[in-house]
């Protein structure tokens, strides 16, 4: 849309004022200060990271150019390969669960009921609260002996769990926190979609005697598909980068059982101070996020072609 209008505006200018010398657009003074800030805190770090990724650079020693050596180290680094696996499983779970629960919550919050405003405010608190602060409380709740979660399990007759203290349950336990924290965001996005739906299909479905589930499955769900894709994309980007919760609760442990790429990147950069290698990890990590976003965009296109969101 934007490109078409841009081109049209550009074409019109070319026709009407062909001989005028180029002048800077008059809104530039408004943008310039932000441009300087963006160049220095966003663009400069990017260029510097690219340059560093081709260097052997440990803090305290001089840099040497090593070409692609840092990148070639990656597939042979078992800790990195393992971290990729953790990141993918953590992300997959952290997209699907909030998406399902958030859609359910959006359907509920779309209905008018007394106290809806205040309950919605309480519902979105987990995502606004300081992540480190809530991670701390979750750590206490996960405690195998004194934690309240095992007490709650015992109430319904389930055996106690080791939660984040066992390699086999640490990722699902962290996903539980991530889901608790970010389901509200999915709810808000989907709620925006539901609020914009037309009412006519529901009226005619009601006349035809459709059940609430049928109406959701065959009217609501197809119509909110685009919003679900947006929510999935935002969720995937955030889950892949998740740091605060994992770092504050497990530091990637036990052992390296919950070490995602982001946590490994932290260790390489600021524990081992291997800055060249860390830069290569950062760039590959970024490429992975871009690829993930692209895959979701392609899926969305395909869903449109096959007519899922008619």
């Amino acid at each position, binding site marked *: 849309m934007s490109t078409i209008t841009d081109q049209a505006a550009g074409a019109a200018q070319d026709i009407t004022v062909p001989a005028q010398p180029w002048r800077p657009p008059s809104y530039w003074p408004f943008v310039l200060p*932000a441009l300087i800030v963006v160049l220095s805190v966003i663009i400069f770090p990017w260029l510097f990271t690219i340059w560093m990724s081709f260097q052997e650079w440990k803090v305290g020693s001089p840099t040497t150019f090593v070409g692609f050596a840092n990148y070639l180290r990656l597939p042979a680094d078992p800790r990195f390969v393992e971290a990729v696996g953790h990141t993918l499983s953590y992300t997959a779970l952290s997209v699907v669960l909030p998406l399902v*629960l958030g859609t359910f919550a959006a359907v509920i919050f779309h209905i008018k009921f007394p106290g809806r405003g205040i309950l919605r405010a309480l519902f979105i608190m987990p995502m606004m609260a300081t992540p480190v602060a809530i991670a701390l409380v979750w750590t206490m709740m996960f405690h195998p002996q004194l934690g309240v979660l095992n007490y709650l399990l015992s109430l319904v007759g389930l055996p106690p769990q080791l939660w984040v203290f066992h390699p086999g349950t640490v990722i699902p336990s962290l996903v539980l926190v991530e889901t608790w924290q970010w389901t509200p965001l999915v709810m808000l996005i989907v709620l925006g979609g539901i609020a914009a739906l037309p009412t006519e299909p529901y009226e005619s479905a009601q006349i035809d005697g459709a059940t609430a589930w049928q109406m959701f499955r065959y009217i609501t769900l197809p119509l909110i598909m685009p919003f679900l894709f947006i929510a999935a994309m935002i969720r995937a980007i955030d889950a892949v980068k998740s740091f605060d919760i994992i770092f504050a609760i497990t530091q990637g442990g036990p052992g390296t059982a919950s070490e995602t790429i982001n946590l490994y990147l932290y260790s390489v*950069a600021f524990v081992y101070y291997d800055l060249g290698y860390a830069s290569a990890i950062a760039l590959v990590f970024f490429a992975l996020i871009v690829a993930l976003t692209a895959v979701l965009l392609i899926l969305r296109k395909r869903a449109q072609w096959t007519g899922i969101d008619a």
Partner: protein
Amino acid sequence: MIGRIGLAFGVFLIVSPAILFFLWMISLSVKHEIDNAAYPPVFIPENFAWKNYADVLASNRFFTYFKNSVVVTGGATLLAMLVGVPAGYGIARMAAHKSAIVILIARITPGLSYLIPLFLLFQWLGLLGTLWPQIIIHLVVTVPIVIWIMIGYFETTPIELEEAATIDGATRWQVFRHVALPVAKPGLAVAFILAVIFSWNNFVFGIVLAGRETRTLPVAVYNMISFDQLSWGPLAAAALIVTLPVLVLTMFAQRQIVAGLTAGAVKGG
């Protein structure tokens, strides 16, 4: 009737995890160690341990960390408003939609990848003992939020008023200052609130850049864990104090927060 019970159950199901969590957080923070270590757990203690809060507030470093948080969040938010609001206006009026790609890149970049080069830069500039590195790096979070939200608001504000002012001889700056800005006030509030919250909550920049004297509250609370592994009461009290300003803001500015989050900005770093 059945529908109403079902709805009540559904509401309970989705809201209770949030409510119960924060109630439990409060419970942990007002209990003595003996109650926090009890099994089965005690929800409402017989003796409230207000001392937990007094201890946190009385510790001599708490106010240093609180002040650090206020300076970093305040500085990063005000600077972001100062450069971001005019930028949002300029981008909206120039219809320079492609520039939004920079914001998108900032949105998907992991915060840690800014840290490596900027850490070296701050070290080289000799800024590491001060709060400046944190203020500057928090701009990575606040500037994209402010620009993104303000583009959205300025695109929807009517351009006719501005054209009329221009015909009356107002300069572009005057049009911005006296016509566009007052109309965009709700947007300013949204941008400000979200920038404050996401800067206040930020943790990853602090653990790398903050020294003992320059910690912000989230970093300070994290550092309490290793020293006070077993004193849950004061730890929970500290966690609650850190996040309380954000929770209060969420309660009172729910409308602005929801508007901002659904505009697609949503947290950086």
